[in-house]
């Protein structure tokens, strides 16, 4: 992975900078420069790429974040915001001249108002523990990335994360009402407001999904929802991908809004069966459809889904009748990534396509996989076309990683060609930076970079991510001098 050369002047001033940073935080242990301790911050979940940062700071308050940023701004030091480091796109990977600002100590709950259906938290708090704070009162926070046990709300906002249930509840941007944001120059701004509306332009909407490049989000107001009375999945097996795809379309058209429609193909089913023995049928493709509501409502929805599915002659229609059966239906899907990891190294893609293109894209992926001589397993959120093709490769075989990356890039270009996009939830980061021009024209990228100019004129916040390196170079160089 190519990264810009670190600023030698900044590296030479490391001790002075670290000393100044120590003055900005109450707890001196919040500034870390010992190489043994900064190792943890060398990479995120895309661990193939790593680099030790100049220093790490773990502030406890918005004021401390502001003081740290003001110093970095004055010193011309790049800053990489970090939540839990679960990004799959290298979004929180530092450079040697960068200070990592980790939000891990900022986990407080600031306010809960069930009457207003909101919770206000510090953004180092994990996704799952937001629900944890309100479930006693019968509420939950809807966006549920698979990493929800670990990932932080700040990272979710920066990546506009989604989850299995976003078919019904939307992604982070649809559930974010307000944020406290510290800009690179240390100024603090409150965005959003009641119903997410603030004065003037929707700046909150731009911050969400900006991959830590516009400001550091220290506090967030999140919409919480009353918990449904119950939920139940059904597993539907098919002998072809086309039929499964057609069934997805028919369910969506019928007007029922399931909370999740998940898809797995044969290679994935086999791997998970070997791994956890969920008892899935032997079939080409299977869907897991989950609906919510009270008992009679669940029955009503599932009987309609049954009617629709039977038009497509499924090999099996397995409606859960108990908690235990529900657990087993989800078990294979939830273990899919772990199961693939046992049989092989793999690279997980994250392209999104219009649902109508599903059969075509699956067929093309099959052909491309054969040409490249690398196996691809498919598991994804079928309801909204967010695919996660897993390319299997051998990390120890010379050339395999490169072939894998090339196939990955081709598959993502295919997603764009059929009307989709490069990333549905994992973000661009450093990983897909160079592919951006496959989806966007120079003018499209230029206007995005001008937004960065407004928030961070010196391009110090998480630079060298999102935009192709050559495209963003003039802006970074402008200020490096």
């Amino acid at each position, binding site marked *: 992975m190519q990264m810009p050369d670190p600023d030698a002047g900044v590296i030479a001033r490391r001790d002075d900078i670290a000393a100044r940073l120590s003055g900005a935080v109450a707890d001196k242990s919040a500034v870390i420069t010992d190489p043994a301790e900064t190792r943890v911050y060398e990479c995120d979940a895309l661990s193939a790429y790593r680099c030790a940062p100049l220093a790490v700071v773990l502030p406890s308050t918005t004021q401390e974040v502001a003081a740290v940023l003001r110093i970095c701004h004055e010193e011309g030091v790049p800053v990489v915001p970090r939540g839990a480091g679960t990004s799959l796109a290298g979004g929180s990977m530092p450079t040697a001249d960068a200070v990592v600002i980790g939000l891990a100590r900022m986990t407080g709950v600031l306010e809960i108002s069930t009457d207003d259906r909101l919770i206000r938290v510090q953004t180092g708090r994990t996704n799952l523990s937001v629900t944890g704070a309100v479930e006693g009162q019968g509420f939950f926070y809807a966006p549920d990335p698979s990493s929800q046990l670990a990932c932080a709300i700040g990272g979710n906002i920066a990546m506009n994360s989604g989850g299995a249930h976003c078919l019904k509840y939307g992604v982070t941007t649809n559930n974010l009402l307000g944020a406290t944001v510290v800009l690179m120059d240390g100024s603090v701004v409150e965005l959003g407001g009641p119903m997410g509306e603030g004065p003037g332009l929707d700046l909150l909407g731009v911050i969400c999904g900006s991959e830590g490049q516009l400001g550091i989000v220290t506090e967030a107001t999140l919409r919480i929802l009353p918990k449904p009375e119950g939920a139940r999945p059904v597993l539907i097996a098919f002998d072809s991908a086309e039929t499964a795809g057609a069934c997805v379309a028919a369910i969506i058209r019928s007007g029922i809004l399931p909370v999740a429609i998940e898809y797995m193909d044969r290679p994935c089913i086999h791997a998970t069966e070997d791994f956890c023995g969920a008892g899935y049928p032997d079939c080409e493709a299977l869907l897991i459809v989950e609906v919510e509501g009270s008992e009679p409502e669940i029955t009503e929805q599932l009987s309609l889904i049954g009617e629709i599915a039977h038009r497509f002659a499924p090999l099996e229609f397995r409606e859960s009748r108990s908690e235990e059966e529900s657990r087993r239906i989800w078990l294979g899907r939830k273990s899919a990534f772990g199961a693939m990891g046992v049989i092989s190294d793999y690279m997980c893609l994250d392209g999104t396509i219009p649902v109508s293109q599903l059969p075509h894209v699956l067929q093309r992926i099959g052909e491309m996989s054969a040409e490249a001589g690398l196996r691809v397993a498919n598991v994804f959120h079928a309801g909204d076309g967010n695919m996660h093709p897993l390319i299997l490769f051998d990390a120890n075989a010379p050339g395999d990683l490169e072939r894998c990356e090339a196939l990955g890039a081709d598959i993502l270009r295919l997603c764009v060609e059929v009307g989709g996009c490069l990333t549905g939830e994992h973000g661009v980061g450093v990983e897909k930076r160079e592919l951006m021009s496959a989806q966007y024209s120079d003018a499209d990228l230029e206007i995005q970079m001008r*937004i960065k100019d407004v928030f961070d004129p010196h391009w110090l916040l998480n630079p060298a991510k999102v935009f192709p390196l050559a495209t963003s170079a003039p802006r970074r160089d402008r200020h490096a001098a």
Partner: protein
Amino acid sequence: MRPDSEADLAAMIRAANGTLSITGGATRLRPGEGQGARIDMRGLSGITLYEPEALTLVVRAGTLLADVHKALASEKQMLGFEPDPRPGSTIGGVAASNASGPRRVSAGACRDAMIGLRMVTGSGEVIRNGGRVMKNVTGYDLVKLAAGSRGTLGALTEIALKTAPVPPQRATLRLSGLNDPGAIAAMTVALTGPFDVTGAGRLPDRTVILRLEGLPGSVEYRASALRRALTDRGDVQIVEGDADFRTLRDYPRTATAVLWRIVLRPSQASQLLAGLPGRHAIDWGGALIWAEAAPGWQPDLPPGAQADAVAGTVQTLPAPDPVTARLNAAIRAEFDPRGLFAGGS
């Protein structure tokens, strides 16, 4: 001026040297808007792509909202955010004003349904952001920025929207005789329980209305569960359909005085309601209050609340803080470096 292609429009904007205002049907211009030379967007119309099975619609900005409704209705679909169907209004005007009706409490606003767009900026450049898929985190989300930007960043030429199925069954629960705190409390009960309410408001005649939608069995089940939850709060009447919600949605159009649009937390609503001078309505479970008032009146806003006079004289309360104001101005300058576009908040 009335361009009939995106290229035409870009040329017009490049050639302009004075104030421009981008209009659709000009049915929702706010005080201060509509000055200078008008660019009438209605020449750029038509649906470019509609995939009912993917719940997506791509439409040129000058298309009449009524035509969008018609196309969706033929597939038993709708715009989930429920914009009011002001005659003559265009989908571009709806998007540029983020017009969102009662279903915003459950389905989100227009901006939440907007998944992609094309626009011509003030430098006459055509840009694209987002796409036509539900999930997309490729680069910055400028779609949200354009939603509600009221023609100040550029002219939207094409918008991709998420559609929603029309629910097979609808019912409205009506409660009358409640005072302000009682009305807000009833809406809060409805929205904080497992009833999946898709609208909660109060009409100017003080009837509290709560909407349930979905499969027939489900609506029936939830209507009786919600009625039970509200028994000690007064008489509940259940009526089929949601005509009351159309009345609520269209209330702003019937206003005869200066109309204020006030957005606040429901828990703050009772206090504000107590100080209103005239006819008003409540939407979004207490988070939106429409209030008619005499010229010169101003609402006494609780912390965090926002208010705009949408008809009458230009007023926005409170003034944005200096950092927000600076960011707004700087972004506008990046999109519209020559400062051509009039108006806007």
